[in-house]
């Protein structure tokens, strides 16, 4: 028995070692396995090609995969529907989606995720940012590999796009105290701890956008098709960002207007882009962006179909026995259509549809019907930056600096391209107004509508009724010009202050 006790004591201490040994050997067995058809983060960034693929993934995320977190569709709803280019007809559905669809349009700006898209857009923006920031966090400051540098440049551009789109929707227009008005939380690297970030000011947000764009410009190592960011896409966006900072017509900031003009110059003179003319222009939206010489950067959807056209037009359906039915719930507004001259080539972007019991608003926008495949899906790209806009940016920048001749010349480039006679003898306020009208006509349904009023200190005026919504005027100082932040965001992050309305 004495022996047995000794043995047991000895074995007991050995047992601990044995368990450890067993653990080590089985760790090896278990380590040998890995999940299939996916890459761990370290593997993904083990090769330059992995950077490229992750970057492509970031573009793909912004473009239109048909999921519940489709960035581009929410961005489009919040950006375009808050202007006066659109009129909603016949919103009969009582589903929560129907309420969400018209929330921004009605300037209700709901903070509930069930009644508006503010929450969805915010979530999608920060999810896109995580993808971008993860790539950037793997780029060393001393990196020299041209493929990785290209990925860095493209991701910096994407971060600017995401942040700029956010600050336009959540920060008051730049001309109104940008140093004190809250902008957005600026997140520059993946957050792993639960540290709720604060909102930066509007100015800090714009500064970050400009910093990223400037940084991006120096890192491009190649020029790809216009579905991808390029040095000139960066300049085109800088031209727009500075324009947003260039103040109102009555109180312009000539310095920012000049910068906007300079970046526009660079794109127009050196970018190698050219405006489409005649029938090529009339067919602008019937093709992919890839061969388009006017598009500077587009969110391309040739790979994955897009949900974006859902409310604009749905051709080729069947409705209680009526075949060939087509319609959209969001129609070009009468106010907008009244501005289009009969000879305007841009009528070709609107098509008559077939919808029972609707005889008044019979035109629908067909800018997003490229390769329409039914059930609201198409493969249409979003032409986010176009040379036409750059001309109009420059025209506006020039008029804000007092260069009426240069501004009118740039305006006429776009005006005559639409098949119209050149405008003559305009200057000052009248010229500025003509530039804004041209901008409205040229860039309609491309996500500029309300911003062009508010950033210039102008009211957004809807002189027409929509279904269930009366005529409406929103002043640029009204809190409603920006979205409420969603309740969910406020709950999860006590540092975020709501936008008062």
């Amino acid at each position, binding site marked *: 028995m004495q022996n047995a006790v000794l043995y047991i004591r000895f074995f007991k201490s050995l047992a601990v070692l044995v368990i450890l040994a067993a653990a080590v050997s089985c760790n090896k067995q278990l380590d040998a396995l*890995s999940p299939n*058809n*996916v890459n761990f*983060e370290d593997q993904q960034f083990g090769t330059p090609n992995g950077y490229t693929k992750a970057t492509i993934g970031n573009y793909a995320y912004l473009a239109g995969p048909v999921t519940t977190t489709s960035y581009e569709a929410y961005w489009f709803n919040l950006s375009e529907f808050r202007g006066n280019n659109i009129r909603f007809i016949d919103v009969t559905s009582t589903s929560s989606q129907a309420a969400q669809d018209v929330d921004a349009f009605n300037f209700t700006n709901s903070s509930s995720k069930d009644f508006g898209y503010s929450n969805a857009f915010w979530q999608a923006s920060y999810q896109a940012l995580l*993808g971008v920031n993860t790539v950037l966090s793997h780029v060393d400051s001393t990196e020299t590999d041209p493929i990785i540098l290209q990925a860095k440049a493209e991701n910096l551009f994407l971060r600017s796009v995401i942040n700029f789109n956010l600050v336009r929707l959540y920060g008051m227009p730049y001309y109104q105290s940008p140093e004190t008005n809250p902008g957005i939380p600026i997140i520059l690297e993946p957050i792993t701890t639960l540290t*709720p970030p604060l909102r930066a000011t509007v100015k800090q947000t714009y500064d970050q956008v400009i910093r990223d764009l400037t940084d991006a410009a120096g890192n491009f190592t190649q020029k790809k098709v216009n579905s991808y960011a390029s040095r000139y896409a960066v300049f085109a966006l800088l031209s727009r960002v500075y324009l947003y900072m260039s103040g109102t017509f009555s109180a312009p900031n000539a310095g920012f207007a000049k910068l906007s003009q300079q970046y526009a110059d660079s794109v127009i003179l050196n970018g190698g882009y050219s405006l489409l003319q005649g029938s090529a222009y009339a067919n602008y939206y019937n093709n992919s962006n890839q061969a388009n010489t006017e598009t500077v950067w587009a969110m391309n959807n040739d790979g*994955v179909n897009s949900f974006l056209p859902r409310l604009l037009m749905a051709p080729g359906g069947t409705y209680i026995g009526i075949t060939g039915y087509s319609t959209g719930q969001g129609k070009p507004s009468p106010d907008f259509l009244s501005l289009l001259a009969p000879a305007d080539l841009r009528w070709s972007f609107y098509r008559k549809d077939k919808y029972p019991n609707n005889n008044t608003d019979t035109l629908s926008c067909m800018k997003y019907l490229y390769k329409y495949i039914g059930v609201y899906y198409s493969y249409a790209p979003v032409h986010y930056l176009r040379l036409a806009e750059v001309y109009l940016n420059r025209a506006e920048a020039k008029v804000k600096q007092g260069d009426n001749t240069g501004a009118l010349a740039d305006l006429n480039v776009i005006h005559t391209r639409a098949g119209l006679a050149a405008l003559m003898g305009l200057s000052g306020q009248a010229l500025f107004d003509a530039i804004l009208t041209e901008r409205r006509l040229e860039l309609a349904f491309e996500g500029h509508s309300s911003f062009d009023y508010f950033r210039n200190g102008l009211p957004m005026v809807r002189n027409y009724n929509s279904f269930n919504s009366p005529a409406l005027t929103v002043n640029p100082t009204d809190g409603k010009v920006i979205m409420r932040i969603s309740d969910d965001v406020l709950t999860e992050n006590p540092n975020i202050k709501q936008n008062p309305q």
Partner: protein
Amino acid sequence: MNFKAIARRRFTHGRHVMQTLLIMKLTAFFLLAACLQLSAKGYAQQITLSEKNAPLQKVFKQIQKQAPYDFLYSSELLQQAGKISIDVHNAGIEEVLQLCLKDKPLTYVIIGETIVIKQQAPEPSKRPDAETPAGPITGVVVDETGKPVSGASVFLKWPNLPTGVYRSPEGTITNANGEFTLQPFSTPGMLYVSSVGYTTFQIPVDGKSDRLRIVLKTFETNLTEMVITGYSTKKASEITGSVQSVSGDELRKGVSTANTLAMLKGKATGLYIVETGGSVTNRGQVLMRGQASMNDASNTNYGPLIVMDGIITTAVNLQDIVNPGDIESITILKDAASTAIYGSRAAQGVIVVTTKHGASGKLSVNLDMNYGQVQNNRLVNFMNTPELTTHIYKYMQALYAAPSTTGGPSSLQTSYGSFQNYFNTTRIYTDADLNTNTDWNNRAFFTNGNQTSTNLSLSSGNDKTRFFGAVNWTNQDGTLIDDNLDRKSVRVNIDQKISNKLSFGLNANALIDKYTQTNSENQYYLFEPWVPTTYANGQLADSVPNYVYKPTGARGVQYYDDPLYSHTYNTILTQRQSYFATGKLKYDITPWLSIQSSNNFQYIYNNVNAYKDPRTYRGRWDGAASSRFWVNGELSITDTKTRYFLTSNMINFNRSFGQHNITALVGEEFGKSHTETFAASAYNNAYPGERNLGAFLSYGTATNVQNGTTATPSSLAPVDKASFSVFSEVNDSYREKYFGALSLRRDASTNFGVNNRYGTFYSVSGGWMLSKENFMQHIRPVSNLKLRASYGTSGREAGADYLNFTVYQDQLQYNSMTTTGSTIQRLANDQITWETTYTTNLGVDMTLWKRISLTVDYYNRRSSGLLQTVQLPSYIGFPSQVRNVGDLTNKGLELSLTTNNIVSRDFSWTTEFNISFNRNRLTKIYGDSLKDGYSGAYYRHVGDDINALKAIKYDGVNPDNGRPIFERVMSDKSIVLVDSIPLAKQDGYRAYRNVGSATPKFFGGFTNTFRYKGISLSMLFNFVYGNKIMNNGVRNFADPTAWQNGFNLLQPNGAMRFWKGPGDKSANYPNYYDVDARGNSAFLTRGATNISSSLLYVDASYIRLRNVRLSYELPAGFLQKARIASATVYLSADNVFVLKSKDLYAADPEGATVGGTSNSFGGTGVASAMPRRIMAGINLRF
């Protein structure tokens, strides 16, 4: 070590501390021994000797060289004994010694490692009272009625040998006539005879005993039964945990099905079993002692771990792993004491399946055949022609009469001028149609079927080899169109004794299943009763018209497959093959120490072949009814293969120390599985009837055809998993009165990657056989009383793997169909770990007047660190992540009662009753609320049941105007009655109030068995109380406007009473014919069938006559002439009737499962019910 601390807390008494320490040391010893199998080989050595005419002393020295024994003898004795010749190969020590001392006046005893040789006691023949030399002992074992008991164990043990002297028991098993024979012996011993269902009988015997007649009494308690608890087998009396054992025979006396889980319903306590309808593909859902995990997309299995013949399986369903005919017993392990040894996979309980093994004795052949009908048993139906056309007429009247939004005449009135004109122009049936009345549902979709099963098994064995083999063929129909299971199975279980010490076991099993399901039209509500099944010429139609309403003119028509025609062509065939083989090697190092290695391989092949034939309408055309497109036959094939390997190695210890009997085991396991899938789709079939890819001309699915896109591979990624475990268990039985057990398991799994790969689970339990205490002896009614208590943990893995890594997937295309980007598929959570359930169990086993057996268990299960997919803060940048965030508790009481009401030679009546109560509460949830996964309409909060149902309260119908009454909750909690859901809902979630739970307050079963001579009748009822079901049929099919889209409507019965007119107070549903100004149904827009309305949540309590069985055992005399050992014929009927709430409108009250993200609690709706099966069968034993 937790282990130590808890052991100490529990045993505070000094002596017990010592005892505990000893146990712990033994545990350590076993853990070591598991890893040092090589060193154990010394003991395992066999003896090989060849000596001619050698002195014994020399022979013993040879033995000593080969085996670690010391010999103790007097040289004189050995010399007197003379020389011997011996020639043995690989023999055990005892065998060698017996040979050495054969015919010598010597005997031996083995004391530890010392062999004592001594003089034999005087031989019986030399005694004065000697009569005859000892011959073999023979006997016969019969039951109280005088019937022979076959298969009873007969053991001869030697309880009176001097301390430390051991002699292994001799044993045999009675043959078919109850007879046994034991080898001759001389030392007086004790003969033990036991058999399942009988009290163990013991009698002292000596060499002269012969021709014994042993009468076994039917069991009063099951305490002597052996219970297989997975890694070990224990006497029922030694069990300290909560364990229920159900014999295979008992199971097979219930419902007739290939699904073993269904057989347990009403018999197993603590298992809430739900079958979802009458299809053979429905394997059923089981919750053990309440739901212990949160609803999550990655969590689809809420059921227990399934262990078969000691091997942990990957099976989720019993139907897929074992054929019911092969089952010897099923043991359900419920508390931590019994499940902790299964560690990380046991939080939801363990079901241990043991299959039949051969018995030594005469060859026995068993043939069981049955045949019967499976009947559709739906309690509801759709409307017939007169009902539907009457409804349409009334609804069109209401539509016509409804004023416009401006209050003026409706557009129908202005367009048509008169109702008659409107009706005649737009109605969707003609006068001629009224002559046709097709019951599409019961004729085409929910059909009757047949069932047949043949089971042939063979059992044989001798003292070395035991064999069991069985073949089975089952062909079972469900009550859906083309719903069939064709099962063929083979099982071979061999137990081979290679030597006294070494034994080998092989369990091999193949299940070859073929499931047929329809791939034809399955939208049973789309068929209008006035549409005939044939063309005008009487030929069966391949497609049938469906008429839709158009307010602007004549009815529209679209076409659907005629299921009666197409179902023979369009089917989904699932071929499922499961191969399961285990090889076991067991070596007895010493009588008290053995090692065992089990190595198992499982291979599961699942092939789904979904085919649509171009000879059928829907085979040629796919797409929505309004826009069909040409596909000319479609096929999709999905192949899934799973390989699983498990090696399980154990050391078992069983030894007495004084009054303590210690059994212990230690083991290690390594398991690895690989699953891979292949899937492909094709269309445009060149050879109708050929359902293979080669017969098709184009790759892709109908969606590819419709959208003009290229087909892409759609197979899932292969999944590899592995786990490694070390485990140990120690049991102590002291004076057979006090029982203690400890178990410990440490698991490592690929589930959580490197960081949190390990989980440790343990249990402590004890039992006290109170009835063996002296003070209990005079309390005569109590023949058995035992208290049990246990505490411990068990775990549950996550559904997904590698959750602590950020993972990129190449998934989204950009710029072209061929440029793929990588996006983050999952964000790392480096904190994630196992879910752990802490269970306390208290139990009592009691037998009164030797007639009444009662088992009561109380449990408290706290499940903590439950995995939940939670929404991440937006600034993290990823929408959701699986985290350990939830806690919940299940508390409950289980009671099982068996009474032998009448016991006599000719007549007996036995009643078995069981009931299980469970109460579930959420104690912690991420963000304090859990959004309902299905409706998304309400939140569950801490304190709610995990399956709490919340809805806006429906107060019935306003008798004056037929509108519904709902309760709106104001901010001060006062209630305002409103007449529509949108009005009640305007304050968000406030109006949602608790209306019950989807899981029952209690459930159970009740069986009565009557036996008169050879005739026996048994009736099994099962019941469920206190759960609610969502009236899914009403929700989906009670839309009064549905006919406009060509749908049929539900045929109202007593459960659905629409308001008839002012003053109708008996109605429970609002006015069906209320049409609002826009021409919509107010019934719907006011929310009568809204998922938020409590009108839809109805009590689903039921009691069902689950099975009635009448059997007759033919008299033995008659059979002997035919050389048949026994023959039984029987009639059996399943699901005979059900009693349910009068307000429930459903095919069956059962069928509401829990879990998943589509948690609808909808039950079977109006689809198929539990089928009624009427079977006749015969069981023959040769």
